């Protein structure tokens, strides 16, 4: 047993006062049997027995025992020093001989040691010191430095904690970003639905890892990109998650689609082709910014435009070759062109509302839309011709059956398209704000199911046709004049319909989409469905899984064609969509009118289908007034 002097003991007590929380684990080779727990002020009667396993002698003391006692006892043992301080005895001895001026800095250099171990070494050093003033000075200095070191360490720990939190937040963000809901925005007719699903799954399986992917672009596509100053190299070698790579693939496909028409003489006049290319570039940017929903919607939009371009070019070719003699479904052609765009535009508008549009989607989308375009004269003329042809050749019954919904759609979607082309973000606001535009497409199946719009009067139909034709004619005129349509209308056109559109656009010029808390909507939807289920007098399950809840029918209060009316709530569990409408019945129980009221918990301000007499009068008055 080695002698432990009083100064060492005092040093121990001092060091333990300061660093008592940091007692390291005792060495394995030495088991202590302490009758009382080690404390700063141990009474002299405390006895410890040390039974070193690697050392031959047992150690027994009647003095207070601390790790410093052990250090004092074994400081000349090389094995102990190596194990405890990761230093040789020689190094320790050299340290004990340095001057007062250097001792603090030398101890602090031993960065691998804990503060307690440093203090122990200081105490060892102090045992051989004689100048009390120097000792006090060094000790004060050391304690200050150690305190500073401790604070630095704590700051480091805090930084680590923050980093951990950031990683968790990022993980959560990625989980939300790549949640399966992201695909709900996909156009149901998109060819990429399955690819997107598998890419999303792959992204999740790969823990959102990003990787590089190269893709081949044919010469024609590269030529198109070079001519249009598109950065195609981004696509040739892209970096991203599997989902991002999928969207880059879609962009590449879109360029390829357009490239096949690149050499057509009318290509440069085709606004749809340009729009498709620009939307595709937006997909790239949105994908880079990880605005996945927006990127998906824009991709659908880009492909929608590209497909329309293909059909327009094919149509032109067919006409030239004289292959098509009769347009079997003229209004359908016009409708498809307008509807195709209108539908995807609605998706984009939805995406912008739901996505973090202010930071990501909005600015990117606006960049494209802020560039003013010429309208596609060919398309507009074709649409006018087909409508005219249909008006002349179809029977009254056909007009009534097909006309109402389709022409209204053409007019409405035509407006949407025009606005999108020429008044950039104003139109997006319009789409987002006017439920009639946004939700028209969502209820067309209901109108079709009931074969509605069968009693629309000729006045109403003509009014709608007139409005549609005037809109389209002005488009052609403006394009032929090669003037920017928005400015033309604003400054010189006397066309009422267009003035109205410009007015609407102006109204929403400074529109910024609101952020929507979808979790709140989900809860609302759930409440709506539960209430409807409880109160329903009839429940009808449709073959595609949709469930309709019918409220009690309220009888008409005056005699007439209509027997009664009730509220219907439809829940589509597959798409998570809830929509509600009023429908009224004839005495034979046939639905004769529908009024959309709610879509996913949101109130809709819609017209009745077919329109009520009051609505028709209002519409006719508007057209007449203009």
């Amino acid at each position, binding site marked *: 047993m080695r002698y432990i002097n009083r100064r060492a003991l005092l040093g121990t007590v001092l060091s333990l006062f300061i660093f008592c929380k940091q007692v390291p684990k005792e060495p394995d080779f030495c088991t202590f049997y302490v009758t009382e727990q080690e404390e700063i002020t141990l009474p002299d009667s405390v006895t410890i027995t040390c039974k070193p396993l690697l050392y031959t002698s047992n150690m027994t003391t009647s003095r207070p025992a601390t790790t410093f006692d052990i250090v004092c006892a074994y400081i000349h043992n090389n094995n102990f020093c190596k194990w405890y301080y990761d230093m040789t005895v020689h190094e320790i001895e050299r340290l004990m001989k340095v001057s007062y001026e250097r001792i603090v800095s030398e101890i602090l250099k031993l960065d691998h040691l804990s503060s307690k171990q440093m203090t122990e070494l200081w105490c060892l050093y102090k045992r051989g010191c004689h100048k009390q003033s120097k000792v006090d000075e060094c000790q004060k200095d050391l304690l200050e430095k150690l305190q500073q070191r401790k604070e630095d360490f704590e700051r480091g720990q805090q930084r680590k904690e923050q980093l951990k939190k950031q990683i968790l937040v990022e993980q959560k963000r990625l989980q939300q970003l790549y949640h399966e809901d992201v695909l709900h925005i996909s156009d149901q007719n998109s060819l990429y639905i399955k690819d997107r699903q598998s890419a999303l799954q792959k992204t999740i399986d790969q823990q959102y890892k990003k990787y590089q992917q190269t893709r081949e672009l044919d010469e024609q596509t590269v030529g198109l990109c070079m001519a249009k100053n598109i950065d195609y190299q981004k696509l040739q070698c892209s970096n991203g998650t599997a989902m991002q790579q999928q969207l880059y693939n879609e962009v590449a496909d879109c360029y390829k689609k357009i490239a096949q028409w690149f050499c057509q003489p009318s290509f440069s006049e085709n606004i749809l082709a340009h729009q498709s290319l620009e939307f595709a570039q937006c997909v790239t940017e949105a994908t880079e910014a990880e605005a996945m929903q927006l990127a998906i919607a824009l991709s659908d939009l880009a492909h929608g435009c590209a497909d329309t371009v293909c059909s327009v070019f094919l149509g032109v070719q067919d006409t030239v070759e004289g292959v098509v003699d009769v347009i079997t479904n003229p209004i359908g052609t016009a409708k498809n062109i307008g509807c195709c765009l209108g539908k995807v535009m609605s998706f984009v508008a939805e995406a912008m509302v739901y996505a973090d549009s202010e930071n990501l989607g909005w600015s990117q989308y606006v960049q494209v839309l802020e560039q003013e375009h010429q309208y596609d004269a060919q398309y507009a003329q074709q649409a006018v011709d087909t409508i005219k042809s249909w008006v002349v050749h179809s029977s009254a019954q056909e007009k009534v059956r097909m006309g109402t919904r389709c022409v209204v759609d053409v007019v409405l979607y035509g407006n949407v398209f025009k606005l999108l082309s020429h008044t950039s973000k104003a139109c997006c606001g319009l789409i987002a704000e006017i439920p009639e535009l946004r939700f028209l497409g969502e209820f067309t199946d209901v109108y079709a199911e009931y074969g509605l719009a069968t009693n629309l009067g000729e006045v109403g139909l003509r009014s709608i046709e007139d409005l549609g034709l005037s809109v389209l004619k002005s488009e052609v005129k403006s394009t032929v004049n090669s003037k920017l349509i928005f400015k033309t209308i604003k400054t010189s056109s006397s066309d009422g319909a267009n003035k109205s559109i410009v007015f609407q656009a102006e109204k929403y010029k400074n529109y910024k989409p609101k952020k929507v808390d979808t979790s709140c909507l989900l809860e609302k939807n759930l409440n709506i469905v539960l*209430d409807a289920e409880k*109160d329903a007098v009839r429940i009808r399950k449709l073959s595609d899984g949709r469930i309709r809840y019918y409220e009690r029918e309220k009888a008409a209060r*005056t005699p007439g064609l209509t027997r009664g009316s*009730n*509220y219907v709530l439809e829940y589509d569990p597959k798409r998570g969509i809830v929509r509600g409408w*009023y429908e*009224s019945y004839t005495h034979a129980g046939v639905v004769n*009118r529908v009024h959309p009221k709610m879509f996913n*918990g949101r109130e809709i301000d819609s017209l009745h289908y077919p329109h009520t007499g009051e609505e028709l009068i209002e519409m006719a008055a508007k057209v007449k007034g203009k």
Partner: protein
Amino acid sequence: MYTKQQFGKELKEKVAKREKVSAIGSWAHKTYYDHISEIDSNSGIRKFLLELGTMEMGPEFEYSYEELDEIADRLIAGEDVTL
């Protein structure tokens, strides 16, 4: 909690202002969705509001102002009103 009495008071105001009856019907429907989380599902107010909403489906479903005023009074008095 959104009650029938509360709705009755609001209805009375609308009637007093002689707002269009079809617009009142539309408002009744909107009221349900605006207050969906505050409506007791056992109170029957949902059914009442949706049925009153049929007034916007055409003149054949409309009540007169006098009738609506009476309905409002009965609601305020806490009576069970069936349309």
